[in-house]
């Protein structure tokens, strides 16, 4: 009798059946072989790919981070350049075709004084066309802070970009909203990353200690987590954020807010990590490693951690949307980032006044950025979580 490795083959076939959707049906053994030797990450990637929403979310996020990295390039005007006379201009329509040719342009804006309100009102002037150029030269900036450059994604010919192009209109202080949105994307998307990194460290360390050692230290950490979870977060954040001195620099405030947000957010990650450690502690392979004589740290880092690292990645990705929302909320209230810093929340401060909003609805545009980013993170995180363990 042969004594075949029955178990391996059977599980290989089981996965082969679900994953070989793209491979020819009935090409049984070849697909099975691939599955049998595929690493954990390859399996995860195949499953993740099938999840269309997650794939869409990942692409969207990649775009967002592209903007964040190259904000200077994507913006075409100085985000801080304010001019009261340009306040609250509506977004300009781009006309794509000029007499049949593809040549985008906008109308110049002519300012007239409204006889009723005596306020300066801008109206498009059909007699003057300002052509839009791509990759135009504009304000100089430093790419990544070091490489000097002056190309921007858009610009205009024959006129000052900063005074003629307003793709998303302007805010109450006359600053171009599109350019500000680009920079806001940079800030809001990176605060999420820094904050979640901090939460991750706290969560993994405390959750790990709690789960691995158990006993009293576990109870103590658990109580702390429970207490933190039952405190309403927003009053706490508001309090902490209000405590940040108003004379701190923009960067200092940025980091202070980041730390504040991550101080509450670590509890969820700690719970996940602790749960994983507890369930893994009693697995046979851990006992086997102990019996062979592995040191504790080797067991933890080389045996236990790899089995749940994918869950941690999923939990971390899913924690980011909450952080983005918190920063946006705090800044919206005026307690988070403050001007001259630019984030989505700061941009939305202008939208607080409903009457003003009705006249200038474009002030709400940054909210779409928030919603899309949060959705994208949620989809991607869901995809990762399903790929890491479809039975969870």
């Amino acid at each position, binding site marked *: 009798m042969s004594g075949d490795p029955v178990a391996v083959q059977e599980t290989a076939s089981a996965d082969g059946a679900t994953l070989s959707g793209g491979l020819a049906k009935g090409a049984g053994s070849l697909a099975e072989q691939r599955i049998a030797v595929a690493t954990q990450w390859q399996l995860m990637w195949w499953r993740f790919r099938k999840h269309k929403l997650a794939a869409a979310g990942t692409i969207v996020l990649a775009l967002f981070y592209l903007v964040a990295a190259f904000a200077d390039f994507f913006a075409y005007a100085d985000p801080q350049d304010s001019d009261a006379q340009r306040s609250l201009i509506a977004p300009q329509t781009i006309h794509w075709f000029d007499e049949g040719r593809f040549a985008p342009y906008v109308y110049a804006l002519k300012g007239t004084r409204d006889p009723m309100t005596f306020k300066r009102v801008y109206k498009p002037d059909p007699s003057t066309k300002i052509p839009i150029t791509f990759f135009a030269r504009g304000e100089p900036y430093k790419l990544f802070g070091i490489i000097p450059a002056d190309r921007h994604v858009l610009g205009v010919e024959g006129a000052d970009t900063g005074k003629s192009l307003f793709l998303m209109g302007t805010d109450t202080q006359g600053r171009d909203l599109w350019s500000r949105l680009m920079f806001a994307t940079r800030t809001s998307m990176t605060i999420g990353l820094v904050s979640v990194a901090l939460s991750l460290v706290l969560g993994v360390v405390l959750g790990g200690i709690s789960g691995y050692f158990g006993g009293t230290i576990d109870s103590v950490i658990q109580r702390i987590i429970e*207490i933190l979870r039952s405190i309403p977060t927003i009053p706490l954040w508001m309090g902490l954020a209000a405590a940040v*001195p108003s004379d701190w620099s923009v960067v200092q405030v940025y980091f202070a807010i980041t730390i504040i947000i991550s101080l509450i957010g670590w509890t969820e990650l700690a719970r996940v990590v602790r749960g994983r450690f507890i369930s893994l502690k009693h697995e046979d392979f851990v006992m086997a490693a102990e019996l062979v004589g592995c040191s504790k740290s080797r067991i933890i880092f080389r045996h236990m951690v790899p089995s749940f690292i994918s869950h941690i990645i999923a939990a971390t990705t899913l924690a980011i949307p909450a952080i983005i929302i918190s920063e946006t*909320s705090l800044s919206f209230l005026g307690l988070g980032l403050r001007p001259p810093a630019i984030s989505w929340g700061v941009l939305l401060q202008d939208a607080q006044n409903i009457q003003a909003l009705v006249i200038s609805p474009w002030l709400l545009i940054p909210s779409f950025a928030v919603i899309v980013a949060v959705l994208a993170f949620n989809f991607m995180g869901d995809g990762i979580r399903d790929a890491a363990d479809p039975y969870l």
Partner: protein
Amino acid sequence: MVAYIVRRMLLAVLTVWAISILSFIIIHLPPGDYVTSYIASMSASGSAVSEGEAAALREQLGLDQPITVQYFKWMGLTLRGNFGMAMEWGRPVVDVIGDRLSLTIVISLAAIIFTWAVALPIGIYSAVYRYSFLDYVFTFVGFIGLAIPGFLLALIVMYVGFAWFGANVGGLFSPEFAEAPWSLAKAWDLTKHLPIPAIVLGVAGTAQLIRIMRSNLLDELRKPYVMTARARGLPEHRVILRYPVRVALNPFVSTIGYLLPYVVSGSIIVSLVLSLPTVGPLLLKALIAQDMFLAGTIVLLLGVLTVIGTFISDLLLMWIDPRIRLGRQ
């Protein structure tokens, strides 16, 4: 069972104490104290405050003593129901807070009721008719709800109300009832205004609960006892509702404990946008003015509120889960 109640109660007390310390620390974090900002606002309006006046003010308000002493004095007063003076208003904190705390409770409860009433049936439907058209619709809407922060939704609702209907949909009372004493008519007016804040507050929580209910129920539907129930000849709706739903309800109920702090804290910002006369706008003003007693008391009361709510949900869980009642892990 008794051990369970005692444990939860001890935890509740511990939590309240931790909250009190936290709120006290928060108030004292900013450099300077109430007197500093008082002086600043006085000089901004043109008048100056002398050193002597400042010192006297500090002594009067007890701000010149070490922090630990101040904390214990404050706790002592609070436990006796004396929440101190709201320095900016010059009136007792209790007066300033007034109705606002109860209104906060009212809209939080309304939001939770809304959340439950919507999440439960949709969650059940989504699990039983998985992958159906409606399931995809609900999942999609749920994701949107999850993605829009409360205040943004409030903003959009206000905008839509104003731009399309010309109405101010914010506020909890019609103008004639705003300052009026409580009466049946006022209560009815409040109820009429409740739906919008309740929905805005509840949407995010609803999306989350639907997902939890759906995944819990999906887990339970796979279990053998469902098939056994069917094999006994039960009609399908009873098979689902009496067994797996009942079991899936347990983790669902335990989520109330975390829903309450979430809703209460969400109400802070939403109240600001919708101009609701709750604790939220008051807290913001107090924090900016560094009005210690007012801000600290509000944070403390909010914390206590949520701890009580969590405790009640623990009791509820114990009541419906025989495994806890009979002490089995």
